[in-house]
């Protein structure tokens, strides 16, 4: 494979790239057919890719070869058809990863740029195989890069080209896996901390309609991925649940802030957003309700925390900070502010309760109380935190025992705010949070409003 470099050098940029793609295809086919394990593309080939497709200068002396935008478009078009026509998934995957797996070198920037364009184009022209490959890529790559890809797509389809939203909407049907990963990436990206990090309305609508249409969408990656410990460090969460919960809880405060700053902005956007988030919240809770069965099927109930304790803690501290700010900004807390913060707290309480109940969150009430200690008073949260009056032991759960360690110093050792710290989904429950005391379907002894 490395010997074709001499033949590529004299060619023009585009045909060299085409030629290399062609050879790469053959090379990988051969490799797969030979059944070498593990199928691994050697470094010389990777160098060739970097030199002739990504146009990273090999050494300082070599003249920088660049493709014009037109040539790049042609290359993308060729790639699209190339992936489309390749019938074997393995080859396709190998080829995709050979092209786009990050190598941690200077070529990564152009790699990301090319990948973003390829995926954006694949979305536009509906190239499912590429989307599938991209979904896999999103699972394996560091979340920072995933977020960048998502950002490009959102920019392209939700802000740059008006009216192209529906195209993006179609990925739901084209490739649910990609769609799920996209949601995860988007929820990671937009954490509602600033204006820039607030999702565009169009995107929000899209996501809400996706999940409303098919709540299982958000679990697809979880359902399809093998439960090995092969989840790479710092990759995206398995499900977008954490991010979605964050959206729903922070939205009342974040959007109120927006509205405050753009006094005379479109006044109909705000209730719209509120309605959307409300719907989203409902959908998320519904997804949670799906979880026990799935977990039970997989035999993971109580052993896999889809919702990380750390992220909940971070969310709680974020929330308390936001509430503080809201209080500060409006010295006399208006009824509006009050309603918004109560809504946020309500949603937190609901999410916590359902998550704990559905086995997505593995922690004790003591831990929760510590986490939520700084939050202002909320009836519902109070209820959730105080827990049911009596316990019903269940054969599935370990006995309700608190380790003395946890009882004495439950939470403060946790980092208070670490949204991007590695949050690997550990297959085994934390030693520190040994038990999940509640059962799904357990009747509440006291249910407000009923």
């Amino acid at each position, binding site marked *: 494979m490395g010997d074709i470099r001499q033949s590529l050098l004299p060619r023009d940029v585009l045909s060299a790239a085409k030629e290399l793609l062609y050879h790469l295809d053959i090379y990988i086919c051969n490799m797969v057919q030979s059944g070498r394990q593990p199928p691994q593309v050697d470094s010389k080939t990777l160098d060739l890719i970097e030199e002739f497709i990504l146009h990273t200068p090999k050494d300082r002396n070599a003249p920088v070869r660049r493709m014009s935008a*037109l040539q790049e*478009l042609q290359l993308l078009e060729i790639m699209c058809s190339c992936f489309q026509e390749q019938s074997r998934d393995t080859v396709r995957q190998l080829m995709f990863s050979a092209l786009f797996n990050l190598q941690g070198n200077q070529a990564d920037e152009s790699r990301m740029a090319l990948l973003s364009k390829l995926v954006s184009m694949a979305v536009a022209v509906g190239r499912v195989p590429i989307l599938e490959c991209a979904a896999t890529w999103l699972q394996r790559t560091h979340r920072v890069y995933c977020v960048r890809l998502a950002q490009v797509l959102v920019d392209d389809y939700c*802000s740059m*080209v008006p009216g192209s939203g529906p195209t993006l909407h179609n990925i739901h049907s084209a490739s649910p896996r990609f769609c799920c990963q996209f949601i995860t990436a988007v929820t990671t990206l937009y954490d509602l901390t600033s204006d820039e990090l607030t999702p565009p309305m169009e995107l929000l609508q899209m996501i809400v309609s996706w999940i409303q249409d098919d709540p299982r969408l958000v679990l697809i990656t979880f359902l399809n991925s093998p439960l090995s410990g092969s989840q790479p460090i710092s990759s995206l969460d398995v499900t977008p649940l954490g991010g979605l919960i964050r959206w729903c809880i922070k939205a009342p405060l974040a959007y109120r802030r927006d509205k405050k700053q753009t006094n005379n902005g479109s006044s109909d956007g705000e209730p719209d957003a509120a309605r959307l988030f409300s719907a989203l919240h409902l959908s998320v809770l519904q997804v949670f309700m799906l979880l026990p069965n799935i977990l039970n099927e997989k035999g993971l109930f109580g052993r896999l925390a889809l919702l990380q304790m750390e992220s909940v803690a971070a969310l709680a501290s974020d929330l308390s900070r936001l509430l503080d700010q809201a209080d500060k900004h409006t010295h006399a807390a208006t009824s509006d502010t009050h309603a918004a913060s109560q809504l946020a707290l309500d949603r937190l309480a609901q999410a916590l309760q359902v998550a704990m109940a559905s086995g997505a969150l593995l922690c004790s009430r003591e831990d929760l109380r510590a986490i939520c200690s700084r939050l202002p008073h909320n009836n519902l949260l109070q209820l959730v935190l105080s827990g049911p009056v009596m316990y019903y032991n269940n054969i599935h759960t370990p006995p309700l025992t608190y380790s003395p360690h946890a009882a004495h110093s439950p939470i403060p050792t946790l980092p208070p705010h670490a949204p991007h710290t590695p949050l690997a989904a550990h297959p085994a429950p934390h030693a520190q949070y040994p038990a999940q005391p509640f059962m799904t379907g357990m009747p509440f002894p006291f249910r407000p409003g009923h």
Partner: protein
Amino acid sequence: MLPVLTAKEVPTSGCGPPYGCICSEFHETNTQKAPDKPPARGPETYGRVRCAGLVLKDSAMSVVFDGSPLKAMQSPHSHTAPAALSAQELSQEIKSFISGVDAVQGRKLSVREHARCAVRLLRSVPACRGAVLEHLRGVYDEHVSTFLHNLETEGNASSGATSNLEDIIQEVHGVLSEFIRLNPRAWAPLVSTWAVDLLGQLSSKHAGRRVAPHSSSLNELLQLWMSCAATRSLMEAYSQCLAAMLAWCPDACVDALLDTSVKHSPHFDWVVAHIGSAFPGTIISRVLACGLKDFCSHGAKDQGPLVEKGSRVPKIGSVVGILGHLAVHHSDSIRKELLRMFQESLAPSTPLSPSSSSTSWEASPQLRRAAVPFLLQLAAMSPNLFGAVSSELVELLRPAVLLQLQALLQGLPREELDNMLGLAVHLISQSPTGGARVLRFLADTATPASVIISGPTPSPHEGVREGCDRLLQMLLLHLHKLVFNRSEGSDVGPFGSASSQPQRVIPFLEELRSHVAPLCAETLRLERKRHLWLHQLLCLLSVYGGPSVATETLCQLLTQARNPEELALAWQLHATLSSCMVGLVPAAVAHCVAQIHTHTLGRRQLRQLLLNLAAALQSQEEEKKAAAGAAGAAGAAGAGAQSSMAAQIGSAVSVHLHDFGPLLLHGDPAVSHAAVRLLSCSPLPRTASPAHLLLLSRAAVTHFFLTLRRRGEAGKTGRDAGQSGEAVSCSVLLLTRFAAYSALTLKAIIQQLVEGALHKGNAELFGGQIADMSGAPVASPSVSPDLGASLLDINCRFGTTVNFSGSVWSVFHAGVIGKGLKARTAANLPDPSGVIQNIQTLLAVIVQCCSSSSLNGSQSPSDPEEPPPINAEAAKVIAVTLVENVCPDVANGELSWPPEEHARTTVERDIHIRRCFEAHPVLFPLLQVVAAGRPALCYCSAVLRGLLATLLSHWEGSREALSTDSPWHLQASCLLVSCMGEGQLLPPVLANVHEAFAHLTPFEVRLLLLAVWEYVRGNGPLPQKFVFSSDKGMFCRDFSRDGDVSRYVAPIHSVLHKNIDTLGHLCWRFQL
């Protein structure tokens, strides 16, 4: 503020057509950025140019053009239509776009179909954005080519060829502007970069076309490009982007503009011009801000005092270029902006200043600190900008600002400060205008505060003062280097030799050349350190400007100095310059003279100049005396330069004596006084042309009479009297020295003195009356004005005006019959003491002139007590002049006397002579002077004879008892006889008879006078009877050679006998 603006930019339904929309945004951004600026300026300019572009096209096109975005505006959801394409169709589209072939039908796409396809992709496939824009470049280029081609063929080609692409361009423009409007944040940076780049590419690519005007003619270029739909649409797109981006990241788009401008330098200018004139305030401030950021990020590592333009970072270069370009129309805004930058960089940093947004440079302390070096750098690179700022900058530097500046600069490292100082010095030395103000400012600020002298500005802080002091000294040092290195290669030869190679120009000094006079004035104020600096500067300026400036400077100093200390500055300057310039003093004096001739000097200055020159000369004389007294005195070396300078001045002045001469008659007494002082102490030239000498002597004599008159007018007391007295003595000195110069001058002066004394204008000074032709005093000068004389009048009076003199007939006009005798005007006698003083002065002058003349060779005054004898030649001159003036008829007449009876033939002439003597009392003293210079009196013999004849007839006809009853005649007789005795026309015995006159009767007086007459008739008054006696040093007459005197003495003795009772005591006087 930020979110407010962005909210304006999100699509709003109530907006008008797109241009209105843009304009309204301009309004808002402008008013929010800088409320003090007229907000309408940018949009107005923009609108005007755009309309100009539209007018050039046919109306149909403009409708299409304006209509297209309007449509896009009206249907915000129009974009949903193309989005309906399925994935399959999109894929086909992409294929078609790439291959240029219709994927379905398999035929080749036309340019416009291809472009349509691209637009569809732009709307639907975001990933194609780059490729589409790239493709559109080709389309635009194609259109421009066609457009220019059509222009070149004068529209021969079918007009359809142009229009088919134009609608595509409208479409693209519509799509882009819609995108920008909907999402400015995403699209504006993209489109602006693309548009600017494409514009640059297009304008440089087509710059060589035949129809394209040269890149220097901006307006034509602008017209051409704005009439082309493609470039106009690009320009509008860019403007839209800029308007959108100004609110949140103006730097980015200006960055792109700058980069492109650097790349396509001359051809891109029209874009910058257009944008710049559309958004002058913003563009200028942004360009500056960009430059500042760039400058700051490049740090001060390569910032030297003299940075070549090429080696500097390109951005600052293009900043300079753009600003220089905009300076043509917006120099005011640029100046304001630069000054604002300067001021704001100094303003105390407030954490949340309301006027500045978060993106502006004022927020960063680092940038603020870099602002001043940046501005300096900018100024160093563009003389235009520097010129714009320098003048007002000085105005800005009030003490408070200076303090701030000092505070700001204190934070900088030493090295950087030195660099800046060097840069500032360099700038000042290179500044073509305003140098004088800068200099004044520096000097004012650097001058130490003083209790005595309060400068125009209140004394600044000590640190500031030291800084300025340092700057000023550096400046002087720098100029010194420049000046002296400049002339190193070409040896500056003697005075006036211009070196062949052109010398480097130093603008600062070049400008100051015209400010020599104020500089000199300021130097002469002798304020503390200031005059040292200025003096140094004047030296440099003189060396730089060469002889012309040096002479000008010296001349100014000489003109303006008011006391010896100030004058010393001139000597110092000369001492410095004399080493490298020869002939400075003569040139300076010549320059002064030229100024005198052109009347550029005021009276005061003129006077001062003359006094200063005189002072210089006097100092020389004193120096000589001192040197004679103590040859080896200490400080002689120091005085050497001065004395040599004084000597040079002396010689220079002596060359120009005739130029100073007319000043003696200057209307201002002070000036003429100064002139006489100068002339009286100036050495006389070795050679001089007679014309000059005569002129000078005439001036000197006239001046003499003037001073006499002034002395009389000044009165006796007070400063005026003293001054006029001094003027008289100076004048006397001048006349004396001048008379001693040569025989010619002696003659001229004496002649003129005598003539002047008798002249009717001066006569009254000496107690004289104005006599008419017949010798009778006229009534009054005002009664018979010369100008009123008419020929008719004279003809009517023919009989009375015919002069019969010289014939045997005499006509006397004694009056009109019936009205009695003609009324004699009562002579209004002037102040007798003044008259006496004047006469004394006149005589003193004449005597001095006559006696000090060098005609007698070495006649050292052996006995200082005894006045030197009167020179015979000089006396002859007096005599001749007297005769000519008293009685022109007898000039050069017979010297010997006729018998007494013959006197009746000359009665009229004699009466005239007598009246002259009556009218001019000064004549007798003059006669005495003549008499003293024997044998000169001989030449007056005709006058003496005439006078004696009239006296004889008077005494004959007199019926008075005593001679004392007719006092004038008695006095005249006495004086006449004594004069003749003194002049040795009479022997002592006869000469003494006048002593007896007062005691006799008129008849007896007549007898005695008759004896005198007889003697003279017998012994003619001829000069050849005199011989020079060397022991006396004068001519003498030996009476023994003449005939016997005794027969003439007989009447005397008989008169003595008759009156022995009264004349006894006089008998011994008449012993033979």
